[in-house]
Each structure stands twice: as structure tokens, then as C-alpha cells.
């Protein structure tokens, strides 16, 4: 057994890799099912497309115990501040998957009622296409998120919501430059 076989085991792993490995394999989604995509999200949670293989066993109801918010469905104007509130109440580190075209860009409902893309409200990590995305697409989005966690920086603050103590409230979050992470096809 040559030295190169020792490359990826516990003894020689760097702390940051270990933390990222731990985070990646225990991402708990918050139940944020809005519309049709929520049904497909539940189907992904059920027996046939089981996401507990990826460590996402439990859909935590309260944002305090959730790491990932899957925005599954169309976000209406009335729901946007609620979405923002739940996102703020989630613990760091937190990620967002915008599931379905309605969440990503407003989809086929380009009208007064739907927020045209949930990235106007919360910073999004992975966009899953489809209407609704088939469970395989959502699984691929989750694996892409794992890849992003694996290659992303560990201590980068997600979106520092600006305190209202600083006088007028900014547009909710300080837009950081979206990092054009060239995400390799997850192995």
C-alpha cells in the first residue's frame, strides 16, 4: 500500500475537509413546500427516490434546526416577506435550493402576483430546472449543492442581513457577487 493510498482517509484529512464532509452529509432541509414542486419534493423524500441516502433524512419543520431551504413552488407577493423571515431565522451555515422554474424565474406566471425569481428575496445556491423538476432533477440539484459545499469556502458568511439598527433598512441583504463556481459533475 503506497503513500498515495493514504490520501483520503481520516488521519491525513485537513480539518476544513472534515468539517465540509460533515456538513455536506447532514444537510437537513426545512419544509418549505409551496406548490406543485412540494409534491415532488415529498416524493423525493419518500421511498422511491429516498434522500435519506444523502443524509437528508428528516424534513425539519422549524428553521432553527434546518440547514437547507428548498423553495419548492411559486413565491407569491404575499409570501415573499414570510420567506425572507424564515430564511433569516435559519441557523448558519444555510443554503437555498430554488426548486422549479417558478421559484427560479417566476416560470410561466409572469404577472403581478408572483415574485419573478426567488433570488430577489434570498440568495440562492442551486437552481433546479423543471416544472415540476422530476425527483431525479432534484437529486441532481442536491448533489450539485454537495459539490458546491465540498469546493466552497467554509467560513464565508452567507448573506449578512443588515440590521435595522443602522437606520433605513437596506433591501434585505447585501448582494455578494455570485461566485461563478464551475461545479464539476458530482462524482
Amino acid at each position, binding site marked *: 500500500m503506497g503513500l498515495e493510498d493514504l490520501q483520503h482517509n481520516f488521519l491525513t484529512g485537513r480539518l476544513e475537509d472534515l468539517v465540509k464532509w460533515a456538513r455536506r452529509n447532514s444537510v437537513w432541509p426545512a419544509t418549505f413546500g409551496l406548490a406543485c414542486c412540494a409534491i415532488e419534493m415529498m416524493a423525493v423524500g419518500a421511498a422511491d427516490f429516498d434522500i435519506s441516502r444523502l443524509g437528508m433524512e428528516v424534513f425539519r419543520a422549524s428553521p432553527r434546526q434546518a440547514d437547507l431551504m428548498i423553495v419548492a413552488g411559486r413565491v407569491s*407577493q*404575499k409570501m415573499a416577506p414570510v420567506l425572507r423571515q424564515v430564511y433569516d431565522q435559519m441557523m448558519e451555515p444555510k443554503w437555498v435550493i430554488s426548486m422549479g422554474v417558478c421559484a427560479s424565474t*417566476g416560470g410561466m406566471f*409572469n*404577472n*403581478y*402576483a408572483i415574485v*419573478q425569481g426567488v433570488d430577489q428575496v434570498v440568495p440562492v445556491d442551486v437552481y433546479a430546472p423543471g416544472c415540476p423538476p422530476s425527483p431525479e432533477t432534484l437529486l441532481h440539484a442536491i448533489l450539485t449543492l454537495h459539490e458546491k459545499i465540498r469546493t466552497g469556502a467554509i467560513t464565508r458568511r452567507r448573506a449578512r442581513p443588515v440590521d435595522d439598527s443602522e437606520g433605513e433598512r437596506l433591501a434585505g441583504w447585501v448582494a455578494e457577487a455570485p461566485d461563478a463556481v464551475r461545479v464539476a459533475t458530482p462524482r
Partner: protein
Amino acid sequence: MTDPAPRAAAEHAAAGSSPPEVPRAQGRWTSEIGFPPRDRYHELVESYKASGFEQLSDLTAVDYLTHPGRTLPAGVEPGRFEVVANLLSLSSSRRVRVRVQVPEDDAVVDTLWDLYPGAEAMEREVFDLFGIRFLGHPDLTRILMPEDWEGHPLRKDYGVGRVPVQFKEAPGPR
């Protein structure tokens, strides 16, 4: 019940199905249509309820701003809005539609809540999306739109609110 009301109901009901010149669907989905004037709307619905229409299945409104030329039976002057109440008789498996014209300036109609408590949310939705007020409604507030939303979206003069998208009508990529 005052004397004129049953006559009004009878007059419309007696016409069998609705007056012939009103274009309607054929076949299985034909149903009787009543066109009461606004002040006799509540009486007509009351007389229908008395004659066995136990359930109000649907109440909605239509904004005829851009389609004034619709055909209506004689003696019914078209208003801008039209409140459509759908009554259902469980005992005799029949439906009847009551279409009442509502002018634009004072868009107010009597509520059906005291006859059919189920009308409460439907009327709130019509108020929310069309701005037609219902007299005697217990809690006439918005139901679908956020509370601080101005305007009534389903009116024909309310824009769709499209965000211009790249390949349809917007200038080049941003």
C-alpha cells in the same frame, strides 16, 4: 316575502331556460339563467332558495369593460361588472345562474351571506379582485392579495404586471 318577488322569479323562471337570444352552451351544460335588476337580486335569490335551490355553489364576477357588446335579454341594460351567482338544487339536480349587472360608478350589490353563509369567502374574493362591495357582508376585507395592495387585479384595466423578459419584448441582454 313581498308580492313582487315571486312574480320576478316566476317571470324569469317561467321563461323556462333563459331567454333564447342569450348565447349559451348547448347540450348537457345548459342551465336556467336569471337576469334580475340590482335591487331585486336578493329577492330573486331568496325565491330560488325557497323553491329548492339549497346550495350556492359559486359566486364570481366578470368585468365587461372591453366587451360591452355582449348579447343580453331585452330590458337588461349592460353594466360594466356582472356578478354571477350559481345556485344548485341537491333535491332536483338542477342548476340556475343569476347574473346581475353592476354599474361602474357605485359597484355595490347586496350580499347573499344571510341566505347562504358559504358566500362569505367568495364575496370577499370578488371584492378583493374586482372591487365590488357587498352590502351587509360581515367582514369585507381582502382575501387573496396582501393587505397593503392597491388596485383590484382582475379588472380589465389593471395591467398583467409582466416583467419584460429577454426574448419577448425587452431590449438586449442586461
